[in-house]
């Protein structure tokens, strides 16, 4: 996004909006991750304790999701940059 058309008061306001949004995004990703890994890894409710197998699954799930997000984010940034440069055509 390009905020260069904004005056400094507007840019200061947007900085604040973006900071708040980043916090919200982070929290949303966190709870989404808990839900996602819980749903994928926990299917046995004969006990309330996490088995070591379930725990390993949760750790791998978290790890993999973060790496996935990062990779998607990197590709997303490249595509966005391309589109900004007007070479967005196939």
């Amino acid at each position, binding site marked *: *996004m390009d*905020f260069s*058309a*904004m*005056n400094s*008061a*507007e840019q200061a*306001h*947007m900085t604040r*909006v*973006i900071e708040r*949004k980043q916090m919200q*995004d982070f929290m*949303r990703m966190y709870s989404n991750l808990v839900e996602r890994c819980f749903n*994928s*890894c926990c299917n046995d409710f004969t006990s309330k304790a996490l088995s070591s197998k379930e725990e*390993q*699954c949760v*750790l*791998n*799930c*978290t*790890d*993999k*999701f973060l*790496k*996935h*997000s990062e*990779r*998607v*984010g990197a*590709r*997303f940034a490249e*595509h966005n940059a391309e589109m900004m440069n007007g070479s*967005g055509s*196939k």
Partner: protein
Amino acid sequence: MSFLGRGSTPSSGGINQERVEMATQELDMITDIFNRLVSSCHAKCISTRYAEGELNKGESVCIDRCVAKFFEVNKKVGEKMQAVGAAAGAGPSGFTSL
């Protein structure tokens, strides 16, 4: 009369409410698309057995192609919606009149 900061007159402290609001909406839009992209490509590319925490080669390649294809779909849908002029009448807010 620009009672609530409408129009392009700057209101509080030199801030043009409308410009700031447009930028905020654009930011929301990008975040929304990104989150759906992450979720869709996860469903398409990542095995949920979670035997390891690394992305393997196949998953990595799949992610790259998935993102590229998602952008293509994004473009096609955008063109189609412009062609049919889809903004009007698709939501319930359209039923609301003062």
